[in-house]
Structures are given as structure tokens and as C-alpha cells.
């Protein structure tokens, strides 16, 4: 009973802290129009500004009359803000970008999105388009990242099973040296964990147990997990978005990326035009740009590095044919994601997860 109360208290605290942090963290930047301003595009995103910056710049080079206000949120805050705005029938944002596509699906399901049909949207694969309202505009495998200074080559886990095996074999070497998302604070962390549990329920339970036993470090967001890794405080980051991981690896040559060879979840970051957007035409123009060949090229070169029909970026350790081999498991943007968004589902899942991982004190 005491354990249960402590868990709940912890859960409550953990709920509160990232909310505040997220709201404070909400990075905002304005890109003034480079020519005479004729339009004003507001982007609310749960996507790193640094990743988006090349795309924003390139878009502005082609649309110099448009000022862009970019506000960065953590996924849960973005969702809450968009849902409240939708209920009030308003929207500050002209386009929402979020890696937590289940939240976008929930928004679209509740009628908070507007349709968009253009030559660019028609090139989006089926699994990354729901109702012509949500479009996946990136292709981001979920990867393991390790620090080669700490992980000898024979230890490099090339599948989920290998990671489980490693943790069982050398629990002491990796005690408090594994980092992953806090699924309660991060919508994308929850989504990935939820899909992990669906891919291989039993194996995933065992892996969670093993992660728990080695006192895995949980952090709110991708970059914090990667930051811990770069700082040398952990050795392996589990379930990190490939795009952020690759950016981190470019900055720090000691970081290495592994695409698991049993299965690799693939996330397509979603974009949605709010139903009540003030300038939906600008939002749609930016969306068209993101989905255009040019936008995808810029994204592949400078922002997200991975692309569906391109080989893996240099230096990434992974299977040859990601999609054809069936190893790549795209998270289909569709109504099935609503199951992940159910409140009971979510609280039960997080509670179970926390029981596995979060019962030891965090450093």
C-alpha cells in the first residue's frame, strides 16, 4: 500500500513538473519577412526548432513576404493547447507539427482539423495520411544510440532481444547507464512504448523488467536523453528518434546509431491544419512545401536525415532494406491510434510502465 501511494505521488509530481517545464521551455522564435510582409504564418510545433530551421529558412527564401512565428512545445502541451483552442472554436496556430501523431489523430477525430488536398498531399503514402487532414511529412526510424567509449563492440545491441540479453548478462556494467523517455511526460515516448508493447508483448515486458532492474534513467525528451548520452552519464539511449540521434551523432562522433534488426518502429511526424486556423492558406502553403520534393530533400539533407526511399544515412548501423524486409514498422496514422489516446488506456499503461521502470529513485 505504501508503495502504491508513493507511486501515485511520484506520478502526480512527474505529471506536474514537465507541464511547467514544458510551458517554460516552449521556445518561440520569429522569422521576420525578408521582403515586404504580406502574410503571417504561425506554427505550433512539438519539433525541435534546430531541426526545423533549415526548412523554415528555405520556405522563407521562396516566400520572402511571409513572417513566421514558430512556437516549440513538448507534445503533451501542444495537444492540450490545441484541444482547448479547438473547444473554444479558435486557433492561434495556422499549422500544427507534432511527432505525437496519436494526439493529432485525436484532434482530427474530434473535428479540430481541416481537409487539404493538393498535388503534394497526394504523394503522401497511405499509412501517413488520414482523412486528408493529417499528413506524415517525415520518416524517422526509432533507434538505439550508444556511446562507443563506453560500449565495447561486442556489447552493441542490434535487436531488442540483444539489448535484453546484454542487460541480463552485464547488469552491473549498465546499471543506471541506460536512458529512455519518460512516457508520462512525453507523448511521443508514450506512443513508442505503446507500439513496442504491441509488437512483442511478452518480450517487451521482459525488456521493461530488465530496464527496470538496471535502474534505467528516464528523461522527458529526446534531446535530454541524448544530452545525458553526450555528457557521458549514460551509455545507451533506448528508443530515440533517428533524426535527433543522427543530429547528435553528427555533433559528437562518439555516438553511434543502431537500427534494431528485429523490428524498428517508424514514425512519420504529423502536420495538421487546425479547423479554426486564422490563415489556413498559409498553413497549407507551408504543408505543401514540407511535402514537396524540395522540402523533402531539404529535410533529408539538413533536418531529419532519413527518408523512405533513400538508403540509410552514412554511419548508421542497420538492415539493408528497411521497408521491404518488414523490419520497418510504420506507425500508421489512422483511427487505430485512438486506442493509444484513450484516457484509461493511457493511465493504465503508464501506471504499468511506471511500476516496471519508475520505482527506483531518479538521479
Amino acid at each position, binding site marked *: 500500500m505504501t508503495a502504491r501511494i508513493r507511486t501515485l505521488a511520484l506520478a502526480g509530481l512527474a505529471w506536474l513538473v514537465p507541464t511547467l517545464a514544458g510551458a517554460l521551455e516552449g521556445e518561440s522564435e520569429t522569422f521576420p519577412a525578408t521582403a515586404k510582409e504580406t502574410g503571417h504564418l504561425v506554427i505550433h510545433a512539438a519539433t525541435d526548432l534546430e531541426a526545423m530551421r533549415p526548412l523554415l529558412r528555405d520556405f522563407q527564401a521562396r516566400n520572402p513576404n511571409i513572417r513566421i512565428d514558430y512556437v516549440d512545445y513538448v507534445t503533451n502541451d501542444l495537444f492540450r493547447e490545441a484541444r482547448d483552442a479547438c473547444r473554444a472554436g479558435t486557433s492561434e496556430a495556422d499549422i500544427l507539427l507534432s511527432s505525437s501523431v496519436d494526439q493529432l489523430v485525436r484532434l482530427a*477525430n*474530434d473535428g479540430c482539423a481541416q481537409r487539404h488536398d493538393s498535388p503534394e498531399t497526394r504523394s503522401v503514402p497511405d499509412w501517413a495520411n488520414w482523412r486528408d487532414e493529417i499528413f506524415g511529412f517525415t520518416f524517422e526510424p526509432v533507434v538505439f544510440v550508444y556511446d562507443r567509449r563506453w560500449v565495447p563492440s561486442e556489447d552493441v545491441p542490434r535487436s531488442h532481444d540483444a539489448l535484453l540479453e546484454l542487460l541480463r548478462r552485464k547488469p552491473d556494467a549498465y546499471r543506471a547507464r541506460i536512458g529512455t523517455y519518460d512516457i508520462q511526460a512525453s507523448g511521443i515516448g508514450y506512443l513508442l512504448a505503446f507500439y513496442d508493447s504491441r509488437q512483442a508483448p511478452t518480450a517487451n515486458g521482459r525488456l521493461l523488467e530488465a530496464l527496470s532492474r538496471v535502474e534505467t534513467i528516464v528523461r522527458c525528451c529526446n534531446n535530454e536523453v541524448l544530452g545525458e548520452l553526450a555528457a557521458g552519464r549514460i551509455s545507451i539511449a533506448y528508443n530515440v528518434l533517428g533524426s535527433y540521434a543522427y543530429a547528435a551523432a553528427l555533433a559528437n562522433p562518439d555516438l553511434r546509431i543502431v537500427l534494431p534488426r528485429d523490428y524498428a518502429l517508424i514514425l512519420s511526424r504529423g502536420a495538421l491544419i487546425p479547423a479554426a486556423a486564422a490563415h489556413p492558406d498559409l498553413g497549407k502553403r507551408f504543408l505543401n512545401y514540407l511535402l514537396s520534393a524540395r522540402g523533402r530533400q531539404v529535410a533529408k539533407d539538413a533536418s531529419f536525415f532519413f527518408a523512405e526511399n533513400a538508403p540509410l544515412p552514412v554511419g548508421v548501423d542497420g538492415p539493408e532494406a528497411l521497408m521491404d524486409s518488414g523490419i520497418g514498422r510504420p506507425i500508421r496514422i489512422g483511427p487505430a491510434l485512438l486506442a493509444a489516446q*484513450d484516457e484509461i488506456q493511457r493511465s493504465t499503461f503508464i501506471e504499468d510502465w511506471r511500476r516496471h521502470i519508475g520505482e527506483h529513485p531518479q538521479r
Partner: protein
Amino acid sequence: MFSRLMRRVGVVLALGAGTLITAAWIYARAAADDAYDRLLLGAAFQMSESLSVADGNLRFVLPPSAFELLGLANDDRIFYRVIDPSGATLTGYADLAAKADLSASRAAPIFGDDAYLGAPVRTVTVSHAMSMPEGPGWAYVVVAQTVEARHALASELTVRATMLVALMSLLAVAGTALAVRYSLRPVDDLAAALRQRDPQDLTPLTVAVPNELSPFVTSINYFIIRLDERIKLLQRYIADSAHQIRTPLTALSAQVSLIDEQRLAPEDRRHLKRVQSRTLELAGFTNQLLNHAMVIHRFDSVQLVPVSLNDVARMAFRNAVPITVDPDMIVSFEAADEDLMAMGDVLSLREAVVNVIDNALRHGAIARLEVRVRQRENFGRIEVIDDGPGIKENDWPNVISRFYSRSPDARGSSGLGFAIASEVATVLRGQLGFRKRSENEPFCVYLELPLVGGQP
């Protein structure tokens, strides 16, 4: 007939097609509803099966497979609500189907149509009996789905059915057109047979027709036979009349000529002259009337044969020009170089030409009368030319009608001469024509007939 028939068939087909398309639409809606209702119900059952009681609490794990099932209608939005036995919403959209009577679903799942978040939705409510620590109770699952996929399926089915109906209608129209044309062909044949029939041919029709038309042909034949009988009767009557009238007339003439003029007072002699002339007039008139009747009725009974215009004209010339013609009068006849043949009846034609020549001698010719036969393109002409003043142009249509006399005092003119000639010409597909007197050409009356073998 054809267009009227097609119009009616078209109306019937259009009504039928409209009914079929409406029915197809209704069936398509029902089929789409049925198909997607099963998905909806399946998902609702999966959800209700996931309700369980653990440690005295209601536990619910939303099965993603339920959403995957509903996701088969990929573009449709999904709403759901799980209600615990106390009536509180456990999870989902709390205001979904708020007004519905949930307990009604205890017997069987209930489907309904509703609107949620501004979109029309199809809902299903299923119940699940739970054994809670405080006693048994009912939990409910309401699942709603927007109707886009249903409508898409229904309209796709309807469009396909419509295309089939349209195709069938087109085939039906084409088939009807062919059938109508085919079945009307015997009628056309019959009409053609009647049209091409010689006017004198009063024998029954022998055209082969389908059974459906034979009463019609029988009626026509019955009519023809009666007409034939009637004409024969009329001919007999005319022959009788001619005979009956001629005999007393001849007797009358004889009696008049027997009166001794010398013994009459000059006054009475004048009266006798008048009686003689009137008797002559009566004889001529009777003759002409009988001739007219004879000519007209001959065409009803006599078969037309190729006739030499030269011969006819020569015969008429000899008949019409009396031996006692004024010696100052120059009369001449000129036949055509080649023998011109026209379909006709010698007697009638001769009578017609005689009338024309007679008329010229009586009213026209002063010192010259010429009869000649000429070919003019596909027509043969018998021309009667005299040096008289001729007939005024505006009188031409009048003189060919019966009993028209140009000069009321003209003796012996019954006014039938041109009428007979014109009727004969018309029956023989020709015409009676006039040519004006001019500086170098005298007045001419001609009878024009199509030549045998020539283009009509």
C-alpha cells in the same frame, strides 16, 4: 407512329429506370449500413469483452484491434463511450449518446442514427452484465462512427447500378426501335402496294402480311370488292342511260326534221329553227356528258396500255374535222418523226383530243388549224394550234373546270370539252396546257403525256 411509339416506350423506360435507380439506391444504403454495422458491432463487442472486474474495481483495457476493425472504414471518425454500472462514464466521449436509453440494449444491441460533433454518425449500444462487489449491474459500450465510408460505398454501388440500368435502358430503347421498325415494315409494304396499285385494279390485295395485320387487309379487300361492285353498277347505269337518252333524242330529231317548213308561218318557222338548233345542242350536250362519263369511268375499269400518240392524234383529227369544213379553212396534221408511246387508253385519249380540236374549230380558228405531235424531253405533246385570238391567260384555270363558257352566247358550247381533256391528261399523269399567242407563234393548246420508258 414510330416517334410516338418510341416516345411512349421512352417514357415507360425512363420511369422504370428511375424506379430501379431509386430501388438500387435504397438497397445500396441498406447494404452499406449492413456491412459497416457489422464492423461497428464487432468493435463494440470487442470493447465490451474487455471490461472486467478486478479487485472489486471495473477494469477496462481498450483493445486497439477494435479500432483497427473500425479503421477498415479508414476515413471515418470514431467515438466511443464506456459506461460503468453506476451510470458514470468510465472513458471515452462523455457526451456521446447522452440522451439514449441505454437499458434498451440489454436484450440486443441497438443501432441508431445520431449526430455528434457536427457530423452524422451511426451508433451502436451494447450491454455487458458485470458482477460488481455491490451486486450485479450493467455496463454499456456505445460506439459511434461517422458515415462517410457508408455513403461512399452506397454511392459507388448506386453509380454502378445506375450505369447498368442506363446500359439496359439504352439496349431496350435500341431493341424497341428495331422491333417497332421491323413490325411496322409490313404496314409500309402494304401502303406501298396500295400506292403502286393501278387505279383500275380493283382485285383484292395479295400482299403477304403477318397474322396481326390480316384483319386489316381483309377489311381493305372487302372494301375494294364493294367498290368494284358499285363501279360496275354505275357503268351499267351509264350505259343504260346513254342508250335510253339517245334513242328518244334520235327520234325527236327525226320528228323535227319531218315538219314541213313551207307550210309554217314565218313566225313558226323561226320557232322550228330554234327547236332544231336546241335539239342539236341537246344531242351534242348529251353526247359530251356521256363521253365524259365514259372517259372517266373507262379509267376505272380499263387497263392502260402503251398508246401511239401519232395514231391517237391522227384518229382524233379525222374524227373532229368534218368533211364539210369551211373550204377557206386550212387544216393540217403533222405526226412526230418517231412513234411516241405513252401509257393510256385509246378511246379516252382520242375523245380528249377531239374535244380540244372541236373547241378550236368552234371558237378559235379563223383560217388555219394545225394538229401536230412533238416530243419535249420525256413528254409527248399533241398540239392544237389555231390562228384565232386565243384564250386570255387569266382564263386558263377556269376553262378546264366543268361548265365554264367564255362567251355566254357561244353556241353549242357545253363547257365540258377542256374539262374532259384535262381530266384525261391528269389521270394519265400529264396535263392540259396553253401557250400564249405571240408575234411569231399562234395560240396553242396542248395535251402533254409522259412517254413510256422516259423518266417521269
